[in-house]
């Protein structure tokens, strides 16, 4: 029996994920594991942007809006409810609903690609400013004080589903985080393999043709946007859990820029790439953060410019298409992914 190479790749990925999930706790101390947990949250955030941009061809410059909404939704819900089961659902639902409203406005308004970047960016700035200005006792949702630029400290961590008296310890949190990452990966793969996913990619390739066949691009883009928002929300929820804390910086432009860099560095049009990009860059930032000579933004900026100019396809496609075929490990299959939208007229 011949196995489709894409199937094989998928199985290898899941196996690797499980290996990391159970293997890392054996080799890392708790401190290292906790550090890795935040990388996992960022990897999930990168999956959101990678799915939206690489497959949907939709360029969001403000994906942090959904990451932040997920984080805040979780924090506020769990402070009010105590048990974390429902808040996790809320952390996904709030960004999805918000994306539905914003996406309907943008896609059904036939706003051109570059302007979608502008609008998403602006929306994240609006959220940042709004949340940033909620200092003072007057701003609270139920029992949760929003705290303005100081954020919300002491957010309760996840607990065993339905049992608020048994919160997860940091070790268990690792399993929860990697487990959800693997799950999200599987779900996204399944979506891409489905008819819906193939149409999404087809629309990225040629919107006019898809329309002339009878697909409504607005609908597919809206749904893609909502799925990506849900993933970003879940990532935000994990992020909040990791530190037990959330502040308006989750909505910042740096956050949105970072996730774009993850995807660009790792590789557009892959799911593995964004995750590798996230972990790699986050690791570099951690190293850079421990020295105080230069600011981390400088490094991020240089990486971004260098990749746009020199390696626009990203690391994973580079290895897949240039290095591996050279070593005759896999057949060559280059598929150019358009990164530059047309100039709006």
């Amino acid at each position, binding site marked *: 029996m011949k196995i489709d190479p894409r199937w094989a790749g998928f199985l290898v990925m899941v196996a690797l994920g499980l290996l990391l999930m159970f293997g890392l706790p054996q080799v890392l101390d708790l401190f290292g594991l906790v550090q890795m947990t935040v990388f996992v949250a960022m990897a999930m955030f990168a999956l959101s942007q990678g799915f939206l941009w690489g497959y949907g061809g939709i360029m969001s410059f403000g994906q942090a809006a959904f990451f932040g909404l997920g984080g805040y939704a979780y924090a506020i819900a769990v402070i009010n409810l105590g048990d974390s089961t429902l808040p996790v659902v809320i952390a996904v639902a709030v960004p999805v609903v918000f994306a539905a409203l914003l996406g309907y406005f943008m896609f059904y308004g036939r706003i051109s690609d570059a302007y979608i970047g502008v609008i998403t960016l602006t929306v994240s700035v609006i959220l940042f400013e709004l949340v940033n200005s909620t200092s003072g006792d007057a701003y609270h949702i139920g029992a949760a004080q929003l705290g303005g630029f100081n954020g919300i400290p002491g957010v309760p961590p996840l607990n065993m589903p339905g049992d608020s008296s048994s919160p997860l310890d940091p070790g268990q949190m690792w399993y929860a985080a990697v487990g959800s990452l693997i799950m999200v990966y599987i779900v996204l793969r399944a979506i891409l393999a489905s008819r819906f996913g193939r149409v999404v990619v087809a629309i990225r390739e040629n919107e006019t043709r898809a329309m002339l066949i*009878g697909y409504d691009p607005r609908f597919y883009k809206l749904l893609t946007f909502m799925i990506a928002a849900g993933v970003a929300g879940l990532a935000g929820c994990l992020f909040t859990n990791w530190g037990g804390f959330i502040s308006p910086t989750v909505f910042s432009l740096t956050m949105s820029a970072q996730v774009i860099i993850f995807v660009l560095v790792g590789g557009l049009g892959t799911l593995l790439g964004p995750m590798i990009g996230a972990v790699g860059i986050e690791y570099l930032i951690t190293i850079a953060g421990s020295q105080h000579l230069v600011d981390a933004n400088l490094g991020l900026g240089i990486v971004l410019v260098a990749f746009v100019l020199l390696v626009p396809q990203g690391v994973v496609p580079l290895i897949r298409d240039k290095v591996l075929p050279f070593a005759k490990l896999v057949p060559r299959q280059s598929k150019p992914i358009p990164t530059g939208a047309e100039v709006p007229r």
Partner: protein
Amino acid sequence: MTSGTLLEVRGATMRFGGVTAVDTVDLTLREVELRCLIGPNGAGKSTFFKMLTGQLVPSSGTIQFRGKDITGSNPHEIARLGVGIKTQVPNVFNGLSVRENVFIGAARRKSIKHARQIVSETLSRLQLDSIADRIVGQLAHGQRQWVEIATVLAQEPDLILLDEPAAGMNHAEVLRTAELIREINRTQALVVVEHDMQFIRMIASTVTVFNQGRVLMEDDVGHVLADQRVRDVYLGKQAA
């Protein structure tokens, strides 16, 4: 077979600023009819197709498909009613394989299994099996035309619009295209835009002549090609 009206266009007009690309065009097409549309460059043929498929909203006039008013409808809505188009500039999914292109055409509102069946039938019908797994962006222009036609056929539309299907094809391919069009016409209506008069003769049918956005005449192929006015506006330039 006398059957009902498939397409009814009344007074269709398309203005771009000062240019009137299509000017009060009337056109009626019966079910399962084959119609050729000819006219010199800039006569408004492609613009007319864009109006029929919803890519352009007519400045005035109405378009009815099976009695339903589709003037100004969205392209995807018109496509769903059963209109397929191969555009003049190839419109394919460049990053996808031939098979995937055709699959996207076939898959709408059908089970995956049914769609796969249509894909394999269409691929062999158009002799695309040998390149089924190639990436379309890497194919030659003529092959991409075939892929686009295959995608449109897989859609199983009742009306197929072909804008210059033989352009850039060699003689053998042109012959095959003509044959294919006659075969398609057994079950589906077509409107074919072409400049190649030999090709028009091969698929012989009623011909509508456009000139400067207006219908110059409409008659069977023999009369049209013999008509002096048509020679003047069109064939004269080609020294046919």
